[in-house]
């Protein structure tokens, strides 16, 4: 679920067309803010006292296949039903429990009759990449053989105002890796990914859409809101993810970058990629110019897009990218690129200095 469609295929097609879902915000007043745009899902509007997160999740699950009831649930969200905190603070009717992550996780557990428990990973923009990593860890350690990872975050005044107050928001649709970039735009979205051990997937006759082969999380230990410009923390995460995967650096053929469109983030990422991959002209793309920064959902949506990219052999264009920033020449494109590859790297970085890197490999159709 994103501003560019309610399923992966629609999102993929519209990404390839270079479309952007970043539009003027109508959900709340934006007159006081330097930016007035975000990537909202059309017709997702509040009704009654229930958070719209549930409507988003219900739409997401329409296209979701069967989920084994013994799956462990890991959700990833930074703010859950934050729209109801807003309503409550304004004295409007609201079920304030929607602000509790466990409340939303329980809703999903009930929806799929899951019996193995749930947790939420809440670590800024890296939340869902970390959730995927923990799911893979549970499977690798033999503690679970089926894990549902479900990530979601909303465009709400709370978050919008915060990023505006930090002067991180762009007044125009964001331009990742462009020399004229002016900041980020937030977006809303959700994704669900079912992880299974190869044995379980085979036993159930399921097609594998891809494999999560490497992962790592690091901290810059540098600044709470700004990344370490020498890319040390992200470099560390990528190197450790490669080490875990057991694949050589040159087996990675493309990168789905965090690419928020802020001056500091994009520059830091290019530095880290250069440190790890040298001067290789590795295709790098960002979807933030198309669907905005979906915060806690970003890594999950991007992982799903990486799987699509591995399947089709196409690197999607980076919407909003026009003039390459220093270091982005020959790496980032605003056109789709044919690139058959076996492994892709996906990275996310966020507040608190956190960096996450995951490596995804091609799937096997059963």
């Amino acid at each position: 679920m994103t501003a560019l469609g309610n399923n992966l295929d629609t999102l993929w097609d519209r990404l390839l067309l270079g479309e952007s879902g970043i539009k003027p915000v109508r959900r709340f007043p934006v007159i006081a803010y330097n930016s007035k745009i975000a990537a909202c899902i059309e017709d997702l509007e509040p009704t009654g006292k229930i958070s719209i997160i549930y409507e988003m999740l219900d739409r997401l699950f329409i296209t979701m296949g069967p989920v084994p009831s013994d799956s462990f649930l890991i959700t990833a969200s930074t703010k859950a039903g934050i729209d109801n905190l807003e309503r409550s603070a304004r004295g409007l009717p609201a079920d304030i429990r929607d602000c509790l992550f466990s409340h939303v996780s329980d809703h999903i557990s009930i929806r799929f009759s899951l019996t193995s428990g749930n947790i939420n990973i809440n670590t800024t923009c890296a939340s869902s990449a970390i959730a995927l990593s923990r799911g893979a860890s549970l499977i690798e350690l033999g503690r679970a053989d089926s894990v549902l990872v479900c990530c979601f975050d909303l465009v709400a005044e709370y978050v919008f105002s915060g990023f505006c107050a930090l002067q991180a928001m762009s007044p125009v649709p964001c331009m990742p890796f462009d020399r004229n970039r002016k900041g980020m735009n937030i977006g809303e979205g959700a994704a669900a990914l079912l992880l299974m051990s190869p044995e379980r997937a085979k036993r159930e006759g399921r097609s594998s859409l891809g494999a999560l082969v490497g992962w790592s999380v690091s901290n810059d230990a540098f600044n709470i809101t700004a990344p370490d410009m020498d890319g040390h923390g992200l470099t560390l995460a990528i190197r450790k993810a490669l080490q875990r995967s057991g694949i050589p650096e040159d087996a990675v053929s493309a990168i789905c970058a965090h690419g928020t469109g802020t001056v500091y983030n994009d520059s830091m990422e290019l530095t880290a990629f250069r440190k790890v991959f040298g001067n290789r002209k590795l295709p790098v793309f960002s979807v933030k110019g198309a669907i905005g920064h979906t915060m806690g959902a970003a890594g999950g949506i991007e992982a799903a897009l990486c799987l699509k990219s591995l399947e089709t052999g196409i690197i999607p264009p980076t919407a909003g990218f026009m003039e390459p920033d220093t270091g982005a020449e020959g790496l980032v494109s605003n056109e789709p690129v044919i690139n058959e590859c076996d492994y892709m790297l996906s990275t996310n970085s966020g507040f608190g200095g956190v960096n996450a890197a995951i490596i995804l490999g091609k799937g096997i159709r059963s």
Partner: protein
Amino acid sequence: MNAFITGTGWVTAGGEGTGRNAAPFALSEGPLPGLAEKITFANQNFKRFGRMDRYCKLGLKAIAYALQDAGLDAWKEKRDIGVIVSTVLGCLATDFDYYNTVIPRDGLIADPNLFTYALSNSFIGYAAIIFGLTGTNFAINEKTGSGTSALVSAMDCISLGECDTILAGICDVECPPNFPMSEKPAPGSIFIVIEKTIERQIRPYGRLSVDKNGKLFFNESEIKDISMCVKQCLSIERKN
């Protein structure tokens, strides 16, 4: 998988401090101590401490105590040490405080400082900066304040070679008044330091292990939550 517990620190209604200082410990209802004052560890003054929200102060202070207890508070080079926290409410109280700065003038006077604390992992970021911690780090929201999610995840990280040293703990400030929750977590923060191997002069409290089903054991006795783990650490410390 076995690992050593080498440090523990806490800030609870029952007291604050470290295991080796035999500080009073009780994760119980009541006002939390010491969140207004400045603190210094390993000769480092936490300059921003006074500006932090209570959730951030609480978690940061407990981490500082735990690292001090393990003899890991002083550093010269950044270290591959991880931090995982379990929290029920996260920064919910700060969320309300921040949004109350948004309402008056439709966001014109929204407080950017408060917004930076409006994440469950903010204090981990500060701990990373202050103590040079570059390892695996994340926040987990769990239903109860047991801390088992953080402990098990920390053991998993060690098992998979993601970290050799990691802090795991809990952090929750008081639940906002009238918040409809049947089981409110006791306010407080507790952290323990878990190490795969020990290459310096320090006596560990004991061994932590986790079985395939995610059950936790301290010196082979099952533990149901982090509070129980700390109590057993303190019991061993008293015997020594």
